[in-house]
């Protein structure tokens, strides 16, 4: 597998080399297929794919497997990139919805006079974006904190308001540090806006924390017990993680909705997020319909990469779910352990009291104290288990659902494209029939329709290309993020375990002399 990461030697035009370049392969295959399918631009189908391949270099394959190792490759690739690529702008613009930028696809579809020159910058182009992202990632100067949950209002209309504080040095924001008050439905509203704008073109939008009617009702009713404080804390942490993930995504960060969410003090209330509202029910119906649709679309997968990735994510999803269940039961067990330890401590204390041998009595009381402290430790450890590990896992299970959704969107896009092609075919047949029927006005109409549908087919194809491209990028980003995330959390979790053990050692070492002192 090491060969996958090495850039193919420059100028080596052997097709075999590019077996390993799954990404590269994809583009070239689609190039060939578009060549064949669009009769308007008659090109020699023998357009040597190899030639184009020859111009690809370092950055191209490196994009596929974005393991940490490859950061070096990226760094080296800088010199070959044209920094002033004009096509950079549309991608990073502040438009509310990035129009499906006809970067590469247009290059493919328009008369290919100079496929090489148009093609190459596009590939460099993509790598430049990657580099930008890298640069952003390394010096990503944005810190978001969700804090101070406070209850606003009373009764069933009450809600929790959270303070969202942003510290940043990025110039897109007006100030360096600002904070606003937001409530849970605001977060949901933001997510829904981002999802509608970005999911259907292939961006993985981080999912928002889940609604919980039971939890919230308890809070509203004003039950001030540990379970409701736990609930609020869990939610606060989840909201923080949600925002952090969202702003880490460079495209989403520059989205005006996101910026408005972070900056402006007043935000229009997002009503359609209520679970039982009309919009909510509509959403549920849509979801069900989509699920049915998914089963009926049988996509002709021309690209093994997607299939592989889907399989991989499916497996990952299963594993993470299993792991999550195990960690949750571990948390339960630890809590049980802590309860038992507390009971034991009490009994040991009583035992110490009723013991008349003074040294033994003292030792037993000490034992009781040690056990009490250990009980505390177990509780804290259980919290760490939960907040660090289990929550991370559940976040990723949800994220994987988003990822799978994005793959589904691609299928839908493909379906649309295929449908457009089928329609075009029909229109063409109708036109050729009319040719012999000698009805000039109908003929004209038919020709107009044909042109319209040709456009749609082109658009469909462009959309499909674009979404495929975006997904590749997104998946690469996701993988990198995932590795980083998991590693960071696991290290933190292990450190918490280390802490616990160190404390245990301290306690027992303090107790030992007491035990030895029993005469």
């Amino acid at each position, binding site marked *: *597998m090491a060969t996958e990461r090495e850039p193919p030697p420059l100028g080596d035009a052997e097709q075999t080399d590019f077996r390993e370049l799954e990404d590269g392969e994809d583009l070239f295959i689609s190039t060939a297929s578009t060549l064949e399918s669009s009769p308007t631009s008659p090109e020699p189908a023998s357009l040597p794919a190899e030639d184009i391949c020859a111009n690809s270099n370092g950055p191209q394959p490196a994009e596929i*497997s974005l*393991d*940490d*190792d490859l950061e070096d490759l990226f760094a080296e690739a800088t010199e070959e990139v044209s920094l002033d690529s004009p096509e950079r702008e549309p991608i990073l613009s502040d438009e509310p919805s990035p129009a499906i930028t006809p970067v590469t696809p247009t290059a493919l579809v328009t008369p290919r006079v100079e496929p090489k020159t148009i093609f190459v910058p596009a590939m460099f182009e993509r790598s430049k974006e990657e580099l930008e992202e890298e640069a952003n990632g390394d010096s990503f100067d944005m810190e978001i904190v969700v804090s101070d949950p406070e209850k606003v209002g009373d009764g069933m209309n009450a809600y929790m308001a959270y303070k969202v504080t942003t510290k940043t040095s990025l110039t897109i924001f007006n100030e360096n540090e600002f904070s606003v008050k937001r409530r849970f439905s605001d977060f949901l509203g933001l997510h829904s806006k981002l999802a509608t704008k970005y999911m259907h073109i292939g961006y993985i939008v981080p999912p928002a924390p889940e609604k919980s009617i039971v939890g919230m009702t308890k809070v509203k009713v004003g039950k001030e017990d540990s379970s409701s404080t736990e609930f609020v804390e869990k939610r606060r942490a989840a909201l923080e993680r949600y925002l952090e993930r969202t702003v880490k995504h460079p495209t989403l960060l520059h989205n005006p909705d996101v910026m408005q969410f972070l900056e402006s003090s007043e935000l229009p209330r997002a009503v359609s997020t209520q679970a039982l509202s009309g919009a909510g029910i509509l959403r549920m119906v849509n979801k069900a319909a989509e699920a049915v649709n998914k089963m009926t679309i049988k996509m002709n997968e021309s690209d093994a990469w997607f299939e592989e990735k889907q399989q*991989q994510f499916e*497996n*990952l999803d299963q*594993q*993470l779910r*299993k*792991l999550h269940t*195990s*960690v949750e*039961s*571990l948390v339960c*067990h*630890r809590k*049980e*352990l802590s309860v*038992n*330890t507390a*009971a*034991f401590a*009490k*009994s*040991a204390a*009583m*035992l110490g009291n*009723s*013991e*008349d*041998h003074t*040294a*033994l009595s003292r*030792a*037993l009381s000490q*034992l009781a104290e040690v056990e009490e402290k250990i009980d505390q430790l177990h509780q804290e450890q259980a919290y760490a288990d939960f907040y660090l590990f289990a929550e991370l896992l559940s976040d990723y299970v949800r994220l994987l659902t988003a990822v799978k959704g994005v793959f589904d969107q691609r299928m839908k896009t493909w379906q649309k494209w295929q449908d457009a092609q089928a329609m075009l075919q029909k229109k063409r047949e109708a036109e050729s029939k009319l040719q012999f029927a000698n009805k000039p006005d109908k003929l004209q109409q038919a020709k107009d329709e044909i042109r319209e549908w040709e456009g749609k087919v082109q658009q469909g194809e462009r959309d499909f290309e674009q979404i495929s491209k975006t997904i590749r990028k997104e998946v690469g980003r996701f993988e990198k993020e995932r*590795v980083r995330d*998991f*590693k960071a959390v*696991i*290290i933190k979790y*292990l*450190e918490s*375990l*280390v802490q616990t*053990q*160190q404390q*245990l*050692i301290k306690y*027992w*070492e303090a*107790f*030992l002399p007491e*035990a*030895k002192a*029993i*005469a």
Partner: protein
Amino acid sequence: MDESQALFVDEDSKSRSVSVDLYHDSLLQVEISDAVSERDKVKFTVHTKTSLPRFKRAEFSVVRQHEEFIWLHDTYLENEDYAGIIIPPAPPKPDFEASREKLQKLGEGDGSMTREEFAKMKQELEAEYLAIFKKTVAMHEVFLQRLAAHPVLRRDHNFYVFLEYDQDLSVRGKNKKEIFGGFFKNMVKTADEALIASTSGLKVTSRFSFLYVFPTSPPSPDVAEGYIPISSVLSSLGTQESSIVNRNFLKLAELFEKLRKVEGRVASDKDLKLSDLLRYYMRDSQAAKDLLYRRARSLADYENANKVLDKARMKNKEVKQAEGHQQLCCHRFEKLSGSAKQELMDFKVRRVSAFRKNLIELTELELKHAKASLLLLRNCLISLKMEH
């Protein structure tokens, strides 16, 4: 003082308790050399080495079952001569039910477990079964050894029979009537105790009556078991991932595997050192309480005898009889009291030193395990961080 009385026998180091009767220079060494677990009973091979002339041979073995131990214990209890002695508590019935059930459930197959998980759980459960088995053997052994060590109890005729008679003692388990009768007797006894305590003028001094509240030590095998599925999922995750992440996950899986073993050991050590200790001393204290009860009972008898004597003197009827009876009671009471005091002081010393030994060992073991876990965690952290 016999060292055997001060020690709570360790499973791992089966310390032989040698009982030397300084007055007669006689050796009576008892141990359980073998034990076989059959379907629902355990057969113990009791091996005796002795230099007492009373026995036919110097070394011999018999096979005994749990019911026979109970029979022996009961004969001691019922013997008036031993009223002033703490009778070593009877060993608890071997109970493999829980463990067997778990093994059975595991065997019936849980489709959700991978083969490695299954093997690991099976190993754990088997180890548990083995531990329970070892413990029950130890309990029976300690019972016999205490009897052999006690200067008075070792001379009991039934004890010799138990040790030597190589045929089945045909001690049938108590039938329902006897069990019920025993239960009833117990209830009467507790009521009696309370009555005596409240009516008798003699305050049973706090020095000798301890209310032992026996804490149950926390069962923590579950946390250890909880780690098994985690480590197995982690390792399966590891096999799927690309190699860097793969290495990390595998490392993590290994770590959890080792941690689990350590946690398991922590739990079993705690069980051994602390809860076994407490359980044993609970039973021993019960035996001591029984002694006190017998003493209080005899005191009550003495007082009653006094009253009867007074009444007889007043009426001047059967005075001699009453006097004789009263004298008897008095003697009995004093003898009991004297021996009881000695026994109870011995008991205290025994108890204190056993607690001391076990608490120290427990602490040292906890420290050892915590340090081992710490080392494991640290190593894993270092290698994870190095991946950067």
